[in-house]
């Protein structure tokens, strides 16, 4: 290791004068490029710069390649990739240094495109840069572009490429790009070493670094039999090990997706189950309360950004959570008053009437909002918790899981620790008897409906984090959540949680074996067989109340 370090140092020392010589010629060519006496001169200058590969000229070459070369007071500048909200751009100087331009007070200089003079470089000239595009893209400001450039480097690169790569890695800040870049570096070096021990060390480095491409790279190396049989076998074994670890992580990922899907189902089915248990109402419009919650979130976002003029804030989402609960809950309460109240203990009729209500709600949403809207995910919940390089748990899903746990807890406390909960449970068990004992069953029913619909609204608000908001979004979940209720046993908190999570897991796990559709069929068959064994769900009522 020491010897290679020494060699690198010597290389650098030897190259120093060369670099400065290159610097001089670079400024000449740059000047020629910007104010060419003739087109042929410019073409030649670009060709020379491409051949010289001087890192200091890379920003300039990149600007040419991306067609973003502009003149500002005869100085070559380029613009940011995205404009600001007023349509202005930040500017960067290109040669000899690559810095952000500032105005006299030290603030970044912002200009419209019209204030700049575009420099047109013909396509034929730009094509000369194609071969070294991966090289100068290593210095791009865009991490994704850099990652792509790293991955495009071949392990057969020459020493100049290696040098550039090292320079790029020295200033690399993005973790993904760094990982890809390191792999390119190790791969290049792996194909240059001649001793088994060092080769193995590089193979280890590649395996430890573990980018997406690592197993393929190691397998290619093993197949080429580049150094000897021993290193080839070593690389193959490492590749297998990596793939196995990857599979395990994939399993964890599936487990996690199952958990998050299950928690959404629990969130929806919770309200459904309470309402069904209490009033014997099949609320087909329950999914639409979820839709209402989602649209409430959307409206809150619009109000915050448009009416109140607070752009770029996460605040709206945290206001939307209680709003969606209240709006969906109130509408549920209204529905109970107008329609559901007349249908108690007529479950099949209630199914049809609430289906009608859901049609009306869907069509209303379609007329009001159009077919597709989306809520911007709050910055706070974007991204994910990177447990390991290949396992990222998205924050939005973690948030949904946390929200469901919270809501289950809340529902549990409400049902088992409050007077209202006691009343709800007693009405669920026997409506007439409760009425005889002085419980206002109608009032209890409307409050329950309010809470149940509110929970669905909250679920809708949570779903905006992971999907679009469409008028018929409720229908995709309604059948599933009814299955959850049926499997769990009606009006049973524990049953709902268990079967919701179970169906969520099952869906995700079977999706990894079969295709999504067959997974769904499989679950259905499973539930039907399960009902053979437990027709009243996971937690049936015991004793005389079980008989109708």
């Amino acid at each position, binding site marked *: 290791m020491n010897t290679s370090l020494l060699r690198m140092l010597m290389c650098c020392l030897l190259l120093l004068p060369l670099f400065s010589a290159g610097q001089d010629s670079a400024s000449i060519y740059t000047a020629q490029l910007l104010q060419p006496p003739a087109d042929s001169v410019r073409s030649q200058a670009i060709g020379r710069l491409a051949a010289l590969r001087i890192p200091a000229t890379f920003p300039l070459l990149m600007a040419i390649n991306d067609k973003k070369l502009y003149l500002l007071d005869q100085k070559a500048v380029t613009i940011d990739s995205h404009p600001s909200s007023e349509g202005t751009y930040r500017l960067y100087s290109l040669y000899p240094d690559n810095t952000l331009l500032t105005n006299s007070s030290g603030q970044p200089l912002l200009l419209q495109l019209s204030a700049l003079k575009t420099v047109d470089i013909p396509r034929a000239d730009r094509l000369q840069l194609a071969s070294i595009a991966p090289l100068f893209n290593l210095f791009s400001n865009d991490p994704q572009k850099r990652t792509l450039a790293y991955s495009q480097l071949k392990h057969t690169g020459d020493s100049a490429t290696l040098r550039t790569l090292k320079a790029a890695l020295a200033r690399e800040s993005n973790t993904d790009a760094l990982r890809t870049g390191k792999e390119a570096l190790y791969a290049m070096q792996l194909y240059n070493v001649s001793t088994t021990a060092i080769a193995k060390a590089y193979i280890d480095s590649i395996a430890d670094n573990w980018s997406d491409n690592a197993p393929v790279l190691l397998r290619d190396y093993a197949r080429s039999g580049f150094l000897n049989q021993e290193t080839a076998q070593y690389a193959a074994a490492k590749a297998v090990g990596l793939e196995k670890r990857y599979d395990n992580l994939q399993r964890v990922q599936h487990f996690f997706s199952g958990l998050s899907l299950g928690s959404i189902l629990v969130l929806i089915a919770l309200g459904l189950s309470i309402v069904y248990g209490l009033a014997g109402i099949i609320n087909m419009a329950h999914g639409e309360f979820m839709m209402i919650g989602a649209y409430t979130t959307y409206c809150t976002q619009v109000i915050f950004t448009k009416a109140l003029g607070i752009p770029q804030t996460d605040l709206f989402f945290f206001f939307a959570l209680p709003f969606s609960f209240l709006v969906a809950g109130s509408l549920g309460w209204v529905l109970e008053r107008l329609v559901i109240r007349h249908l108690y203990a007529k479950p099949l*009729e209630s*199914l*049809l*009437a609430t289906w009608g209500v859901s049609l*009306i709600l869907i069509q209303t949403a379609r007329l009001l909002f159009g077919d597709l809207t989306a809520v911007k995910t709050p910055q706070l919940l974007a991204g994910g918790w990177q447990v390991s390089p290949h396992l990222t748990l998205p924050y939005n899903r973690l948030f949904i899981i946390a929200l469901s746990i919270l809501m289950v807890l809340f529902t549990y406390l409400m049902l088992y620790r409050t007077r209202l909960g006691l009343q709800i449970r007693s009405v669920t068990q026997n409506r007439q008897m409760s009425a005889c004992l002085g419980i206002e069953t109608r009032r209890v029913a409307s409050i329950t409906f309010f809470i149940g619909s509110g929970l669905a609204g909250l679920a809708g608000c949570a779903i905006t984090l992971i999907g679009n908001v469409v008028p018929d979004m409720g229908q995709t979940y309604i059948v599933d959540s009814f299955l959850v*209720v049926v499997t769990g046993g009606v009006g049973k908190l524990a049953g709902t949680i268990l079967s919701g999570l179970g169906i969520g897991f099952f869906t995700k796990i079977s999706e990894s074996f079969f295709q999504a559709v067959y997974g*769904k069929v499989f679950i259905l068959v499973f539930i039907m067989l399960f*009902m053979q064994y437990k027709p009243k769900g996971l937690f049936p009522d015991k004793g005389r109340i079980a008989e109708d």
Partner: protein
Amino acid sequence: MKTKNNILLYILFIAFFAILLPAGYLTGLLSVNTISVWGRYFCFAIAALGIDLIWGYTGILSMCQAFFFCLGSYGIAMHLLLKKTVAAGAALPDFMAWNKIETLPFFWQPFHSFGWSVILCLLIPAAFAFIIGLVLFRSRIKGVYMAIITQALTLAMWLIFLRNETNLGGTNGLTDFNSILGYSLSASSVKLALYLVSLAVLCTAYYCCYRITHSKFGKVLQAIRDSESRVSYTAYKVVDYKLAVFVVAALLAAVGGMLYLPQTGIITPGRMDVKASVEMVMWVALGGRGNLKGAVIGALLVNFLYSICTSLFPDSWLFILGFLFVITVLYFDKGFMGLGDTIRQKFSATRLKTSQTH
């Protein structure tokens, strides 16, 4: 008095649809498309009779009738498509060639012959209904549970039919047929004939259902609806009765589907999605359940309304349908056919009230 009324109604119905409408077409007052549209509604009415048997008379809300309807349609569609393919000299239907399938899937083979197609169109839904019914009724799943599970089943089948791998045309379904039994489907006379056949089958189905409901078997079905546990205490095998009526309902739906296909010329999985299956139940609810006339009239009326509303004000059809659902369930429990009774009852009730207060 009542039977007299009924007979008058039947005569009016047959006179209107079997004589007046075809006469209108022959004299050039009605286009052949109008005739064909009514022919389609008859197919829906046949399926609605099945729903009335199982829901109105036996009290089992089955949401998979749309699936049985589609099974019938798909069977005939497969036969028509194969005939067309063979006539064109191709080895495979177009959509299969596009999906890069080389040999005809095994389950398409029997559909070369018309006879086998018809038999299978009836046999497959019956077998499905038998298996589903056996599993569900044996475990005493009823009421809401039954509705949800059959709905989920339809959803699962819908998802399967949407796939391309099942070789049933995927989302686009099966379409583009040219002839049935050698007669061109685009000919007006064939359309009229199909219309008349549908009407005849509807009348036959109605007669059969009428006989069923007025037989001892039908009485047991209604007893099951009113109190299942008492029927089983009196040593009736409730499961067998339910299973039988479930199979009959599935067959009726399949027959409706079989007749429906040549008149529309296309079948897609959209005919059996959640919306379609609830809507089929709604026909019966709107017409009046537990009343065979109600089922027929409900199916005809809703579909007729649908065609009027979607052309006049397309945006509001769902509003109208939704309100119809809610209002029917809330106020007209007996549906359209029971409208007169309901109003009379309300009327006499209010009169009673006012006379009491005075």
